[in-house]
């Protein structure tokens, strides 16, 4: 694995975390005035910005309209300066369109789309700095933005990545751990019901190890949901203080 020791003999990871420890999460809601909802999140060094417009009338081709629920339109992009090597195209390559697709699926599962027939909800996500766990940062940021926009959801959608090194599941992978070529699993969870909105895994993993890995990712997601919940509550408190007088 590229000569990197991902887990030390003492049981610590490259950046000094324990296997099940998350990176520091900082988030803010309502960062833009123009959008209906917006949020910014930092998970360690991964930084993501999410903006939500809608629900509004379907733009573009009318044929996309669904008569019984809202259309969710997602666009994922990475800033050209987000990675160590400068990216040429911020969006539109295969990986980005796949990511957009996954975000769309995640939020179609979580947002109560049937409340807004014949309308559209736009979710734009941008990665400002990429240090592993892009998908999870995007989902978490978008969740906050959707909440900020006041669009009803079944539950928070929390996403987290997990890896598997030396028979130990690692939660919330950083870039070095992700690029080592080991197993990496991304999971989006609705924490209260324990339902998985999206599951994606790469690289080889023995079948017997799947259970502990999913379990670790789910625990991490639940941890994240507590953080997101406190962010939302704090934001509400701030806003209500501002509007009181």
């Amino acid at each position, binding site marked *: 694995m590229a000569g990197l020791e991902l887990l030390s003999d003492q049981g610590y990871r490259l950046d000094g975390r324990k296997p099940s420890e998350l990176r520091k999460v900082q988030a803010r809601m309502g960062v833009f005035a123009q959008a209906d909802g917006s949020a910014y999140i930092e998970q360690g060094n991964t930084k993501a910005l999410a903006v939500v417009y809608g629900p509004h009338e379907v733009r573009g081709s009318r044929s996309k309209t669904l008569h019984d629920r809202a259309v969710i339109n997602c666009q994922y992009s990475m800033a050209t300066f987000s990675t160590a090597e400068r990216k040429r195209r911020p969006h539109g390559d*295969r990986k980005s369109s796949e990511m957009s*697709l996954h975000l769309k699926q995640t939020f179609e599962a979580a947002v109560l789309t049937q409340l807004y027939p014949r309308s559209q909800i736009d979710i734009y996500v941008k990665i400002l700095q990429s240090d592993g766990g892009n998908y999870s940062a995007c989902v978490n940021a978008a969740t906050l933005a959707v909440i900020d926009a006041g669009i009803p959801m079944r539950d928070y959608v929390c996403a987290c990545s997990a890896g598997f090194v030396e028979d130990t599941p690692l939660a919330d992978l950083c870039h070095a751990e992700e690029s080592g*070529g080991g197993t990496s699993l991304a999971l989006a969870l609705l924490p209260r019901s324990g*339902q*998985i909105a999206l599951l*994606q895994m790469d*690289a*080889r993993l*023995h079948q017997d190890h799947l259970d502990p890995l*999913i379990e670790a990712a789910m625990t991490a997601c639940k941890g994240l949901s507590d953080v997101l919940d406190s962010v939302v509550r704090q934001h509400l408190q701030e806003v209500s203080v501002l509007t009181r007088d």
Partner: protein
Amino acid sequence: MRETPLSNCERQFLLKGIEEKKRLDGRQTYDYRNIKIAFGTDYGCCIVDLGKTRVLAQVSCELVAPKENRPTEGILFLSLELSPMASPSFEPGRQSELLVKLNRLLERCLRNSKCIDTESLCVVSGEKVWQVRVDVHVLNHDGNLMDAASIAAIAGLSHFRRPDVGIQGDQVTVYSPEERDPVPLSIYHMPICVSFSFYLQGTYLLVDPCEREERVMDGLLVIAMNKHREICSIQSSGGIMLLKEQVLRCSKIASVKVSEITDLISKALENDRRARKEGGRCGFAESMPVERITVLKSDGAQIEMSDAEVGSEAVTMATESQSAEPLSEVGRVPSPVVRAPGAVQVGECLQNAWGLGEEEDEDDEEEEERLEMQEDNQRPMKSKSEVVVISDSEEEEVVILHPKKTQVKDSKPETKPEAPSKKKKKKKQPLH
């Protein structure tokens, strides 16, 4: 052209069937359709039939400069194309969501799981490496493209031989197949995708959904595994909510299916190798079943008798003895065969997809083979060996223990009555 939407009636009918554990083509919940693998005359050319879904994979290679960050590694390039030939809803030259999804899944299934040794593809470090390119073309779309594509791609890669190269000083010589035998790629393992479709918020699950079933499904879970029970990739899609238990259960089912399919691929490869070695004829022309219009054939639709009274047995026997056809020879006594009214078709391969069991399929094939043998005996036996047919036999079914499953097929009364014993011809064991 946008695909014609499914009518509400049809949708409800399909869902009702799934609720009652019945599928349109008479399969069980966890059954695959018949898989056929055929290789072309060229190395690395492979057609996979999964029921009526047909996919062609062609592997090719060329010498290119390696990527900057990986100077000693060859490149595996995968590309899947949905040609408008496969389905009227596929438009040429447009990156549809389905196309992006399939391409990425295939890439992750084969490249990210490192199924081939890319370092062995290096010729001169930092200057020349082999780029192996896998082009997968969908020829006919009848659902579950992903599984068919992954089988075709890995079978094509295993079948492929690249030209040998020699290096003298800084001179690189690529030898033609006449000068030196081409070398096979080194394959570490064979990842194969298994798709599960979910219905009614994940309450019901089907393996290998056909096109109709795909159109009413809520969501899809694709698990790629190899026969060592290693999961190479998992992807859920569609807005479904899964529970962890469901994922784990699916992974268990997948491991069983994957080992069956891997065996089938190795068997097909072995057959092809033997055919080539003996100098026999190989290629699609030999291995595709011939479709000739020689006979009148009417299809029998089978009636499920699992919940019928025993009293109806007399009637059953009457119908049985009436139709002394090879179809009833299989030995499935209590299910009468009803002729489709007025639908006598011309030709051998025109088959009604409704309710044709696997055993009958094989029987048909055997019959066809016999017919051929009669007609021209000088033809080598080899001609048939290219096509390997797998069918999920009931023994294999038993491996997956799930209480929810209803063994409809097995539910025939064990007390085989003194039926006009057509059992003398033993039930043909499926090849595996």
